[in-house]
């Protein structure tokens, strides 16, 4: 209920969510929305026309239909990776921040190690090794992206564990598990949501980069994959902007929408930013 109000009140969050919802719906309903089967070979290199809104590619697949369907993989990989990162990051952040001691040091040590690894080269390296599988790539991105969430959650938990309601619950006999699940978790959820949005954007960018480099799954269309083919199969040299521009724009728009939401969250927590924006 509180969230619903937040979404309606804040124009940044509202417009960002509206945009992202649009993309999600388009992706979910793409099989019904797409005018053609995106895998079907027709005449190649067609220019945009009423029959093929964005023309066809090198093997004659309808680019507009491709664009719609590719959203499923791009958003799907992004969401599952971000979800994994969020769950791992929250669990580790809460555990480390609440339990402190040795556990904290070990977990935060691991977090820092993962945090300093340059993300993209590592992902490229491992995905070459693992081969092109969508769950594999999601898992990989998820594993790379949890540390920044864990860090943020931990520092919030450090102040939460001193909160009056935590102390009074403890004084009435609540154990660590009880306090962590009942009192700490709900109070970090807004923060998790904000971090999730950023992680989602990051995850989608990584997925697009991997696919663009040709390391994605060729049997699953994604926006990065479309860019890859447009680049390697003559889309750029033939200046077929209707081939390479739409997937690039789609990625940019989704990231833009996510950044809007994030900006909305930040504005809510930092009134100074609000003044700058006005």
């Amino acid at each position, binding site marked *: 209920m509180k969230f619903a109000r937040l979404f309606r009140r804040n124009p940044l969050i509202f417009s960002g969510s509206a945009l992202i919802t649009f993309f999600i719906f388009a992706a979910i309903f793409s099989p019904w929305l797409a005018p053609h089967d995106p895998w079907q070979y027709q005449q190649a290199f067609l220019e945009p026309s009423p029959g093929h809104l964005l023309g066809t590619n090198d093997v004659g697949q309808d680019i507009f239909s491709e664009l719609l369907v590719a959203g499923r993989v791009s958003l799907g990989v992004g969401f599952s990776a971000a979800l994994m990162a969020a769950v791992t990051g929250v669990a580790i952040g809460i555990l480390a921040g609440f339990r402190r001691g040795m556990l904290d040091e070990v977990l935060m040590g691991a977090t820092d190690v993962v945090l300093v690894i340059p993300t993209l080269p590592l992902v490229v390296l491992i995905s070459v090794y693992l081969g092109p599988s969508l769950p594999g790539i999601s898992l990989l991105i998820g594993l790379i992206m949890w540390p920044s969430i864990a860090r943020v959650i931990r520092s919030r938990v450090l102040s939460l564990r001193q909160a009056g309601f935590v102390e*009074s619950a403890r004084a*009435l006999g609540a154990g660590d*598990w009880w306090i962590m699940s009942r009192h700490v978790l*709900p109070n970090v959820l807004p923060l998790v949501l904000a971090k999730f949005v950023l992680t989602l954007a990051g995850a989608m960018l990584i997925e697009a980069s991997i696919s663009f480099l040709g390391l994605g799954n060729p049997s699953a269309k994604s926006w990065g994959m479309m860019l890859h083919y447009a680049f390697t199969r003559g889309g750029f040299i033939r200046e077929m902007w209707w081939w390479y521009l739409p997937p690039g724009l789609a990625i940019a728009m989704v990231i833009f929408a996510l950044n809007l939401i994030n900006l909305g969250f930040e504005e809510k927590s930092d009134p100074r930013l609000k003044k700058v924006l006005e």
Partner: protein
Amino acid sequence: MTDSLLEVRDLHVRFNTPRGVVRANNGINLGMNTGESLGIMGESGCGKTVLILSLMRLQQPGVIVGGSIWFDGREVTRLTQKEMQTVRGKGIALIPQNHSTALNPAYTVGEQLGETLGRRQGKTGLWQTLRAGTPGAGTRDYENLRHVLSGLGFNDESVLRRLLASYPHELSGGMGQRVLIAMALLLEPKLVIADEPTTALDRATRAETLELLGRLSADTTLMVVSHEVETLVCICNRVAVMYGGRVVESGVTGRVFSDPHHPYTRILLQSQHLIRGKPVSSAAVALDMVNFPPGCPFHPFCPEAVPACSREEPPETVFDSGSVACHLYNGSGTCSK
């Protein structure tokens, strides 16, 4: 001594700080029987909060370096943290000082009271924990809640419903305080401890809460911590006066107030009659808990100090229903001067 509930012997609690070792509790002796109501009084910083937190082993980062705490037949200082969870709440329930932060802003009052009930019944699975909500009308839990809350002045069914559905920030100070009291009572504890129950309240609510605690003390074993004499007079049948991390005097409330034995008690009472509200006697402010004076901690400020006071710690003189730790008394409870 058959129904002795709490027995604190020579309790020492210290904090290791960059400034040095803070000796917050320095050989506390204290006893309580079931049914009694005991007031702990003393100025800011004398170690009252540290004492009651130590009873529940929540004094961290403080360390209990010596002494024993017997509660309900168990030695609290020797229990594991896991075992402590059964002492906290069901054994000793604390009514926290600050009602505005002691409730979780994410849950309604009903959900938090329901949570307490659920924990008492051992429903501690992750799912049960997350879902613990307001007990539905007609259930045993709801009757339980209604019973406790009506004792706290929420008699009307619709008022009760509204209370259970409201979030902590919607409560007035007095209501918040009563919800916290209810939370403690729901666990049916053997001992209820209230830390400064009235300090954060305005005048009208304070009177109301005092009256409530007074009624509570009739059928609960109650320990009340306060630096306000008037709070304790209303509620407690016995009081213990603390100074410098020690109990310097204890006894029946009437006797302590009408015939204070320890020079510090006299000064404390005087300062309270002179200045209403928070006492600002110079003594405690001046007492440095790190560079602790040898002998009686109060001797630098004591108008009646004798040479022995700065050399030896005064022994505790026990008499009929009280005690005093002062060199002016030796064994009989009458002044030797």
